[in-house]
């Protein structure tokens, strides 16, 4: 049996070689970008890609000459606010759909589901007019308010709330817990994992917004990092490649760290919560 299930040594070497080659190809854009972020722009412009004049100068320039930290800070504020709001409002809605009995529940849930079919990208014209009329242009709130809730989040949490044992609700009823207490003391703690998954999704979703902030922000005070990087590219007119690569590295490294730590939650979200 061992002979059948255990691959031969040559087979293993071949597997590792293939894995390594593919990993290098997948990571190549990171590696090329990271490497050039240490090269003086002069060397890059002359095509001296293998120059040995490596230094942290591009990073020093990026931190001192560009508002990259401000952009990152803006994105952090917007993404955190969006995440917290979605955790609260999505879980409240999901609670209502699972634990409350009221007229029109099915209809309302269908309405929530229907919003998943309507792309935000196709609604930018009236939405722009709305936020303009509300006087929200060029502020943090303009990038948070439209995304305070998400039908996807409600749908995902509803699926997990429905999987809770019925005895929990019975126990809560016996103890005379009201809806708010049951929601706060039992439902939320019991669903920590799906809540963390939704948190990761909503944070990254807000972090990766591009079109909406581009339409609604005009100054570096509020511009999130995606649009900030675009702003830098247009200002630097693509010439200072070394520094541009350094700003990209500054932005991507924290995200990669967060991703590797939170990877488990993404996986469980996709494979359990969202797809159930």
């Amino acid at each position, binding site marked *: 049996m061992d002979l059948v299930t255990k691959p031969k040594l040559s087979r*293993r070497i071949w597997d590792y070689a293939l*894995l390594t080659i593919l990993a290098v190809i*997948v990571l190549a854009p990171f590696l090329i970008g990271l490497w050039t972020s240490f090269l003086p722009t002069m060397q890059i412009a002359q095509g001296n890609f293998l120059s040995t004049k490596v230094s942290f100068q591009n990073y020093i320039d990026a931190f001192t000459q560009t508002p990259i930290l401000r952009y990152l800070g803006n994105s952090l504020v917007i993404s955190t606010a969006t995440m917290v709001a979605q955790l609260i*409002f999505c879980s409240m809605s999901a609670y209502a759909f699972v634990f409350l009995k009221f007229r029109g529940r099915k209809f309302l849930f269908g309405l929530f589901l229907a919003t998943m079919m309507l792309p935000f990208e196709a609604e930018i014209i009236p939405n722009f007019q709305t936020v303009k009329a509300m006087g929200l242009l060029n502020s943090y709130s303009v990038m948070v308010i439209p995304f305070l809730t998400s039908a996807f989040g409600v749908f995902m949490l509803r699926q997990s709330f*429905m999987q809770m044992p019925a*005895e*929990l609700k019975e126990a809560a009823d016996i103890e005379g817990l009201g809806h708010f207490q049951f929601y706060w003391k039992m439902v939320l703690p019991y669903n920590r994992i799906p809540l963390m998954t939704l948190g990761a999704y909503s944070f990254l979703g807000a972090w990766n917004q591009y079109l909406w902030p581009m339409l609604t922000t005009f100054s570096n005070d509020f511009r999130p990092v995606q649009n900030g990087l675009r702003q830098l590219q247009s200002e630097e007119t693509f010439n200072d490649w070394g520094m541009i690569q350094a700003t990209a590295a500054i932005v991507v490294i924290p995200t990669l760290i967060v*991703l590797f730590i939170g990877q488990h939650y993404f996986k469980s979200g996709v494979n359990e919560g969202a797809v159930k």
Partner: protein
Amino acid sequence: MLKSPAQSTPTSPLSVDKTKSKLAEQETKFTLNAKDKYFAWAFLGPSLLILGVFIFYPMIKTLYLSLFLTNTVGKTTVFVGLSNYMNLLTSADYLSSLGVTLFYVFAVTIITIALGLILANLASKRLPGIGLFRTLFSATMGVSVSVAAIFWLFIFNPSTGFLSLVSTWMHLPQIPWLTDPTAAMWAVIITTVWMNLGFTFLILLGAMSAVPTTLYEAANIEGASSRFQFFHITIPSISPTLFFVSLITLIESFKSFGLIDLMTKGGPTNATNMLVYRIYKDAFYSGNYAQASAESIILTIIIALFTLLQFKVLEKRVNY
């Protein structure tokens, strides 16, 4: 005062057997309750308000605008019925945008899925240290659109870019990546695929690791080749996930905007002028809100159809 859950030993929630009975099956036990109604509105209110103002109202408003002519500030002037749609669907320019988008969407989806399958199949092998490769293969999930654009714009840069250098070293002909219409399209496709790869890989890997190992053991005893096993065991076993992830990729690609704005601005000669970029241009550059609204409705119909298909798959997976 309320007792804490832990004190009520007989029905302690922590000791409840999860597999016993699920709330979903007990739904009938609830009875209509006046108090519930108020709670329901309080709990649903905030979400309903946001969805109403930023999803439902704008959709109706867009539909409304698409039936009129508008002035430069987006106010309606003359009712024209469906003529904005007729104009679009007979305009060579719009049809070319539609064609370009379809080409992009299908190329991105097919290539992403194919590469995702190759990576996931390799990474699902039980080898020492495979965890490292799994982490590396999923790394592009952490890349946002502007970072991906910077990395790849340098790679594709015509004078000092990485590919241009490699072509020089190897004495190969230079490809004018971002200035030739066909090459620019492929540059955007390659960048999108790269960005998608980490996510697709993770989902497919998850599905593959759920395939019962006994199937492969039996195939090994029968002496089936690994290629045979891949096509006759792996692919059929993960087909619901495969279909699901293809649809997500497809839907997301229809909505592509950031990379196009950052890499090509719809050019050269409209070669990458895809649907969302067009809406943005027509509305916020040309001030043609009516036409942009009709384009938005066409996009919504396309996305809604694929999303409905996705819901069907979800339903199947629930019973799966």
